[in-house]
């Protein structure tokens, strides 16, 4: 028994972790002999500890932020919004739609009619019970002429929303959409009480895990635990303080000095220093976020596929991941589907830097003397100008002339992106292939930043959307990825990882790659370890 008491001492003095303790004790076959005071918490390790104030800071806050879900755009307001309200569907860390406010759903055989059964007995923070009416109101907030919502294009295919009693909602679509539940998991489509308008949005009356105590856009949000939350035991924290801190150094300093428990977007240039701090954990996970250089394929001389191919070939992806992302990312293959997406085409060969082949294509197009202007600004993504310069240098080796045009950050998205023939861009990606393609690659899509219009692709997109057979769908999406890769206008050199840092007192399950901050659900998914 001396070994056991030795282990117990080590454990009590924090020299070994719980896990090690349990492992050692089990190895000795002594579990039964251990004092119950030491074990119960361990055996219940799956039950997270309750309580505590969780302090997080993230980027993307502005004093002009609003909690109106139609205008959600950046991390800070999205995260706060996710603390306060829910969607019908949650997208879990495996990129699967799971029930949230909807208990279950089913579709017609052609996937053009979807019926959602609403969870019963869910209450808003003001005590009102959630009914189908609130859902219809909340979804309609993003539809129609008047709507300024970013989710408007996703909902275009809805022809009618019907309710059957208080707990059943049916969406009728113009065309079949096998991924419709994913759309209902989009972070804009949050459910708020019927009739919420104007200033009421800023009160944040939702069904969410936390209740809004104070909200100062661009500065801070304080929330406290909703004791009435519909998910059993959740959330674990008693209070959450969310700060908007744009300056990455201020965020890291706050974490280092213990003022903060978690930060988003750690600086990849200095993250190795952060890793050395003993009580800080750094997480880096592959995501759907990618950087791209979209080319408008309807502008001369980019109409020639040889020109596009040549430009794709002189992009040194390996070097870009190494220098721009400091290794925190993956090489892109000129299509927007990430390795974390369900139907990622891993069988497509990785496009690599090949100056000779590029020269061949450029010569074929007769454009070796042409100078290609690449418009970039760090507003597109952090390091965009550096990436463009690198691009210019690697192209030189193939005799292809690229000229980097530095654009002002202010107004970049209005005046440069989709306006200049070749620019830099950033995409957070989408959980499904259909959403990503429909939003940016389908003909006539509002954010089609390459003006690419490929009949075969557009036909496949429609077919795949309504296809319920997984294997067939995969086949279609693989073909579409290959079409975008070889014919499309986007040069997609890299997918960046979500790099975040937090205090090691925090515990969590597998972190989602769907959005930053564990799909912005960190406040209800994480807890403090004892």
């Amino acid at each position, binding site marked *: 028994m001396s070994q056991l008491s030795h282990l117990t001492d080590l454990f009590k003095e924090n020299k070994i972790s719980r896990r090690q303790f349990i492992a050692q004790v089990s190895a000795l076959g002594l579990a039964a002999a251990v004092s119950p005071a030491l074990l119960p918490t361990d055996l219940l390790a799956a039950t997270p500890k309750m309580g505590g104030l969780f302090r997080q*800071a993230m980027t993307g806050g*502005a*004093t*002009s*932020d*609003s909690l*109106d879900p139609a*205008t959600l*755009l950046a991390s800070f307001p999205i995260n706060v919004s996710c603390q306060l309200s829910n969607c019908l569907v949650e997208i879990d860390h495996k990129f699967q739609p799971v029930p949230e406010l909807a208990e279950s759903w089913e579709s017609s055989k052609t996937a053009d009619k979807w019926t959602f059964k609403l969870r019963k007995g869910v209450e808003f923070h003001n005590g009102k019970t959630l009914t189908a009416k609130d859902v219809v109101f909340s979804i309609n907030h993003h539809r129609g*002429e*008047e*709507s*300024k*919502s*970013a989710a*408007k*294009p996703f909902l275009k295919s809805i022809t009618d929303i019907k309710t059957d009693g208080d707990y059943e909602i049916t969406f009728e679509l113009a065309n079949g959409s096998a991924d419709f539940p994913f759309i209902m998991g989009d972070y804009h489509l949050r459910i708020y009480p019927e009739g919420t308008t*104007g*200033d009421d949005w*800023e009160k944040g009356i939702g069904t969410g895990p936390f209740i809004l105590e104070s909200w*100062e*856009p*661009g*500065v*801070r949000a304080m929330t406290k635990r909703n004791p009435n939350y519909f998910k059993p035991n959740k959330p674990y924290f008693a209070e959450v303080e969310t*700060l908007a*801190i*744009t*300056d990455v*150094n*201020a965020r890291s*300093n*706050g974490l*280092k*000095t213990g*003022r*903060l428990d978690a930060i988003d977007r750690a600086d990849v240039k200095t993250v190795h220093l952060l890793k050395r701090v003993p009580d800080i954990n750094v997480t880096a996970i592959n995501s759907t976020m990618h950087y791209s250089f979209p080319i408008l394929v309807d502008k001369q001389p980019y109409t020639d596929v040889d020109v596009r191919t040549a430009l794709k070939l002189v992009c040194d992806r390996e070097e870009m991941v190494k220098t721009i992302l400091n290794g925190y990312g993956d090489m892109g293959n000129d299509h927007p589907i990430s390795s974390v997406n369900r139907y990622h085409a891993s069988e497509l060969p990785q496009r690599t830097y090949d100056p000779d082949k590029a020269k061949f294509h450029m010569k074929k197009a007769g454009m070796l003397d042409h100078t290609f202007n690449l418009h970039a600004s760090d507003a597109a993504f952090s390091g965009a100008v550096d990436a463009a310069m690198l691009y210019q240098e690697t192209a030189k080796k193939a005799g292809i002339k690229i000229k980097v045009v530095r654009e002002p950050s*202010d*107004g970049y*998205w*209005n*005046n440069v*992106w989709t306006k200049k023939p070749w620019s830099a861009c*950033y995409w957070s990606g989408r959980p499904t292939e259909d959403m990503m393609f429909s939003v940016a690659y389908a003909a006539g899509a*509002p*954010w089609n930043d390459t003006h690419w219009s490929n009949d075969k692709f557009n036909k496949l997109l429609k077919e795949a959307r309504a296809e319920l057979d997984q294997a067939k769908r995969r086949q279609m999406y693989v073909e579409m990825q290959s079409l975008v890769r070889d014919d499309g206008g986007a040069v997609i050199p890299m997918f960046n990882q979500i790099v975040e840092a937090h205090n090691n007192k925090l515990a969590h399950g597998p972190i989602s790659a769907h959005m930053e901050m564990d799909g912005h659900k960190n406040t209800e998914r994480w807890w403090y370890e004892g």
Partner: protein
Amino acid sequence: MKNVILHILKRIGASVVTVFVISLIIFIGVELLPGDVADTVLGQSATPETVEAFRKELKLDLPPHIRYVAWLKNFVQGDFGNSLANKRPVAELISWRFSNTLFLAATTALIAVPLAILLGILAAFYRNTLYDKVISTTTLSFISFPEFFVAYILIALFSVKMELFPSIAMIDPHMGLGRKFYTILLPALTLTCVVTAHMMRQTRAAIINVLASAYIEMAEIKGIRRLRIIIHHAFPNSLSPVINVVAVNLAYLVVGVVIVEVVFVYPGLGQLLVDSVAKRDLPVVQASGLIFSITYIGLNLLADVLSMLSNPKLRQSQF
């Protein structure tokens, strides 16, 4: 005293005109910037359709002069209007941030002004000695570093290494006064480093200037001690330029500290103005721009009045 009051009244009259012209300049400036609030709030996710809907909602489809007159009418009636981006009343957005800004400026002034004047007097007293040179070099080097650099050095030293002061200077109304001072000490010190040199050099120069006058020579001949000469005879007579430079620096502390606000995450007016310009949120830009210009005009007026009062010649003169 009568002409002082008359002067103040005249200046206030001129200030009102200035403020009006500034509001016009701000309006035209924001109009000239590419894009409007609908474009910028929707950002990358903007589509022509959503932008149009947003514009209608905000009445941005009206011609500019009509919007300006509407804004001016409300403003004159004391209604600052609502933020275009999130519909909150501008007064509510600005009031607590402005008091934060004033609090930081006042705390800094409390440290920096006495320090600068003391150092300036001492530098004048020990003119051209090693002490003078050390003071001048040190303060001048501080002013030559960018603010954020000084800020990061202070954070690295006092916050990360010594763990004495917080690196995030977020204050809230529930904090006691002492706690607030403690929280904002590092930003206040950063700003002190930035403004001290200017005031100190001016104090030193003004005193040295006065020291060349005949009456100082007279005092020296009478055998009064040098320190006494400086404090009793030279300093009061050099107050006028010192007051002016202090006023300019105080105005800077109110309007020019956005970088320090960002580094220390201090919720002041500067960040609000930058965000609002970026979002083309005109009512907020107008209101904060006017507050800034009124601060400048007011502090300059105050400096003029004070230097008049401190100078018997000006106090008596007719103008």
